C-alpha cells in the first residue's frame, strides 16, 4: 500500500471493504412476486447496495448488506422478507457480484 503525502485518497475505494461480513442474524430476500419497482428499498438502504431496473429485478448486494432490515420494513408490497442468515451464500448472490450491469450501476 502506498501512503500518499497528506493521506489523500481515491474516490469510492471503500468498496474494498466487504461489509457484508458484518451481517449476523438475517439477510433480505427479494421475493420478486409483487415488486412494483417503487425504488423505496433502494432509497432506504443505508449501504446503498440495493439495485434494480424494473419490476421484480431488485437485489441486495450481500457483499455489502449489513442486514439492517429497513428494506423489508419499508417495502409497501411486502415483497422483501428478512430470512435467517446462511453462512454460505446461495448461488444467486454469487452471480450478482459478477454481473456487469449491476457492477456498472454500483460504480456510477
Amino acid at each position, binding site marked *: 500500500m502506498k501512503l500518499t503525502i*497528506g*493521506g489523500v485518497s481515491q474516490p469510492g475505494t471503500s468498496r474494498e471493504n466487504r461489509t457484508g461480513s458484518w451481517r449476523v442474524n438475517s439477510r433480505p430476500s427479494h421475493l420478486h412476486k409483487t415488486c412494483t419497482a417503487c425504488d423505496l428499498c433502494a432509497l432506504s438502504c443505508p449501504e446503498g447496495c440495493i439495485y434494480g431496473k424494473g419490476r421484480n429485478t431488485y437485489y441486495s448486494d450481500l457483499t455489502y448488506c449489513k442486514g439492517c432490515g429497513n428494506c423489508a420494513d419499508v417495502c409497501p408490497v411486502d415483497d422483501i422478507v428478512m430470512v435467517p442468515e446462511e453462512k454460505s451464500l446461495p448461488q444467486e448472490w454469487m452471480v450478482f457480484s459478477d454481473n456487469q450491469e449491476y457492477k456498472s450501476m454500483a460504480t456510477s
Partner: protein
Amino acid sequence: MTKKLLEGSQGIAEAVALCRPQVIAAYPITPQTHIPQELADMVANGKLKAEWVNVESEHSAASVVLGASATGVRVFTASSSQGILLMNEVLFNIAGMRLPVVLVCVNRAISAPLNIWNDQQDSISQRDTGVIQLYAEDNQEAADLVYQAYRIAEDHRVQLPVMVCLDGYVLSHAWETVDIPSQAQVDSFLPPFKPLYKLDPENPLSFGMYMEPDKYLETRYMIQHTMEQSIGIIQDVAHDFEKIFGRPATAIIEEYQTHDATTILVGMGSMVSLFKEEVDQLRSQGQKVGVLKLVCYRPFPKEELYQSLKRAKHVVVIEKATSLGFGGPVASELRSVFYGCPHQPAISGFIAGLGGRDITAETVKTALNKAHRHPVDTEYLDLRTDLELEGISNPAGQHKK
C-alpha cells in the same frame, strides 16, 4: 527594486501582495493588525486581486486558508500571541494534510497576565506542529522570508506550511528601509502555485482521512523526514533568491564574526542586531566574540549548528521564550545537538525580554559575563530586584546546573 521607508507590517503586506495570494483570511489581534489592514486596503482598492475573508476567529482564519489551499490556490494568514495559540489545532492539521500554507506570526507574549508586547513564546509554542518556522532579524529579512516561504512551502518535496516570525512592535511597528522587488522579479522567483493534490470534481479526491495505528506512525515519520530534507531545499531557495534579487538571503543560519570566536552568542529575531552591535564593541576591546543567528528554528538545523559552534569554548543563548518547568527551548535543543559529540562547548541558556522587557547592551554583557564565569543552565536576565515576589524568598530565583 525600490527602496522604501516602510513600517515592518507594510513591508510584509507588500511582499505578500507580490506573491499573488488568492485567498487571505485573518482575524485582528495586536500587534499583527497592520498586516491584514494593509492587505485589506490593497484588495479594497483593486491593487491586489484576492478573496478577503473576514473570519470570526483565528481558528477559522487558519481553517479558511486550509480549505482554500486544499482547493488549489495560494493563501495567506497572519496572527499573534493568543491567535497563534488558537490556531494551534489547525496548524497541526494543515501540516498533517501537507498543505503549503504561508502565515506570518507577529511575535507577542502569551497571557496571563495579559501583555501585548514582544517575546517569542507564541511561535515557539508551535514548534511541534510540523510548521516550518523562520525568524527575521529586521524588516528587510522579514519581507524576503515571505517570498522564500512560498517557494519552500509549495515545493513538492516539502509540502508543509511555513511561518515567518517577526518581533511584534520592535519590527512590525518600526519604520525602516525595505527593498521591495518588482513584480517581474518575484514572478521569476516564485512560479504560479501548482498543487500536488486538490479538491476538484474532475478528480474527486478525499482529504483529511482517518487513519489507524498501522499507518499513522508512518505519516509522522514522513513529515520528520521531509523536515530534515527541507534544510537543503531551504538553502537552495535562498541561493535562488540571491541570484534573482541580488542581495544575500539567510534562511537557515547566519554567522557573524564566528571564524575565530571563542564565545558565540546565539539568538533569533531582532535581538541579533543588538548582538552584532555588541560583538563589534567587544572585538574592538580584543574579545573574540561572534554571533550565530538562528533563522530556521523548525526544522532545527542540527548539522549546521554543530559545524558553526563546535570550535567555540562558550555558546551563550539568549531567548525570548521558555518551557516553564524546564528552560529555554533553543538552549536545551542546542545542548542535545552536542550530546555525545567530540566537541563540547559550554552552552549557557538565558531567558530575557519576556513580555516586551527591553533587551539592552547591558543584558548581553551580563549574559556573557555570567557565562564566562560558569556555564549557566537557565537564568532569567534583568529580573528586577526592587519587586517583592510573593512566595519567593530569594528573588534571584536562579538555578544552576
